[in-house]
């Protein structure tokens, strides 16, 4: 199990995490080492075993269709790094 620099850069792109050159090298080594150790999972026979996403029996929990008060706009926007009027300000999405 060896993760190349290119693979690390591809995953970083998927995760939108910027990495320095040194971080790319280190992660390539660390992730390879971790995955190599976790490869023991492949030895477990899971034929016919369903996956478990969570450990309780609840399914499709729906809330009542009822209007409840929400936070005031000023409070929701209070932590925004950039805002304009009643909006979060974002950078250009379309050129």
């Amino acid at each position: 199990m060896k993760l190349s620099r290119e693979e690390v850069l591809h995953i970083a792109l998927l995760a939108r995490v910027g990495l320095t050159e040194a971080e790319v090298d280190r992660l390539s080594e660390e992730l390879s080492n971790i995955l190599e150790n976790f490869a023991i999972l492949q030895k477990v026979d899971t034929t016919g075993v369903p996956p478990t996403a969570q450990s309780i029996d609840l399914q499709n929990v729906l809330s009542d269709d009822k209007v409840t008060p929400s936070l005031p706009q000023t409070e929701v926007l209070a932590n925004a790094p950039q805002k304009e009027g009643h909006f979060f300000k974002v950078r250009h999405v379309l050129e």
Partner: protein
Amino acid sequence: MPTIHEANQLLKSRKLSSVELTRACLERIKEAEPKVHALVTVTDQLALKQAEKADRLLAKKDNHNPLTGIPALVKDNMCTRGVRTTCSSNILANFVPPYDATVVEKLNNAGAVILGKANMDEFAMGSSTENSALFTTGNPWDLSRVPGGSSGGSAAAVAAGEAIYALGSDTGGSIRLPAGFCNVVGLKPTYGRVSRYGLVAFASSLDQIGPLTQDVTDCALVLNAIAGYDSRDSTSVPHPTPDYTRCLSTELKGLKIGIPREYFMAGIQPEVEAAIRAAIDKLAGLGAKIDGEVSLPHTPYALAVYYIIAPSEASANLARYDGVKYGFSYKETDNMWTAMEKTRQHGFGAEVKRRIMLGTYALSAGYYDAWYLKAQKVRTLIRREFDQLFEKFDALVTPTSPTTPFKIGEKTDDPLQMYLSDVCTIPVNIAGLPAISIPAGFANGLPIGMQIIGKPFAEETILKIAYAYEQTTYWHKRRPNL
């Protein structure tokens, strides 16, 4: 510091006021913090106001909550309205939540006094608090050693007498490991028992909030206050909540306890094994029927299952930190993608990035089946194994950790070695079970924790066993010399 139940007696009999108790904690914080570094934020003015309010409630002589007027700390990943909640991360360094987590709301409704927010590994990812982007917390028993993590600030502060109790969160052992390392009681409730609303999400199928306290009675009292259904958490379970103090008795006759041999693996520190074996003998002396030859054969796979599932969930949960809605934002660019990448590059620490990368990899096209889905299937096998044992046993007893607290810096260069600290606690989160860590001895002046694992929603059984054991020992009464 007094325990909750001791302080409650003093408050009720008017021998002590909440303001006096709160001042005593704040004094202690001033004295201990330069050495322990357990707290990210101290809300002294707010705490004194809450204490004054609590004193007015206590004066009314009505039936008040046992937590009224008692000073507590909250791990810094639980939202506190108007009080900075950092997750010990640069990306949330200035985040002030506009709402309270359900557990915080419950403490407030109980008339509790909140002294501040406790340090942790960034986003609860770690076993030592060394991944905190702010500072590392020292173990009050030996300041050159780690307090365990990720709720290390909560555990160290309770051990150092900075608060009467604290709340922590536990995704793979983050309450129990620090409890064991700091000689306090720590409970991870059954998944779904305590609302996660307002808990900054790490791995949503594993995260659970629980108490860190000075003894088992206090643990039951705090669980009483925070447990219960909450419509704002869709994984909160609508089971009735008992009074957890009613199960506390010293009679263990008829209880069947299994000792899974995989938890006494190669590499376990001999003093830890000896202490836990001695504790098990005590449980037998109290009337419990012990079977020492029990097996959970999939235990060796639990670590890999956890470190695939938790980072996968984390990579999805942490996608929300894009520098737009709140938190740190990289401003020196007009490009949307560059801004997002730089925000996350500078906002997240090394371990958080490592886990986001690992999780993204395990979920990515071509690897999903081999890693994520495979881990979920082995998760099923681990849960089934526990279910089968619990047909025959009421509880399982193990060490909380294979070793006593390690040195600061000892494992920071080797992520896998650090991950191994959680080897005894992780299977419990994978299966969603309740488990408690209680003080069970010392080796070279360092605490040893014993873990008691129960059936889903059988917190009463493990509290009862923990309580019975505690009554026969003095470990929990020992305090570190700071």
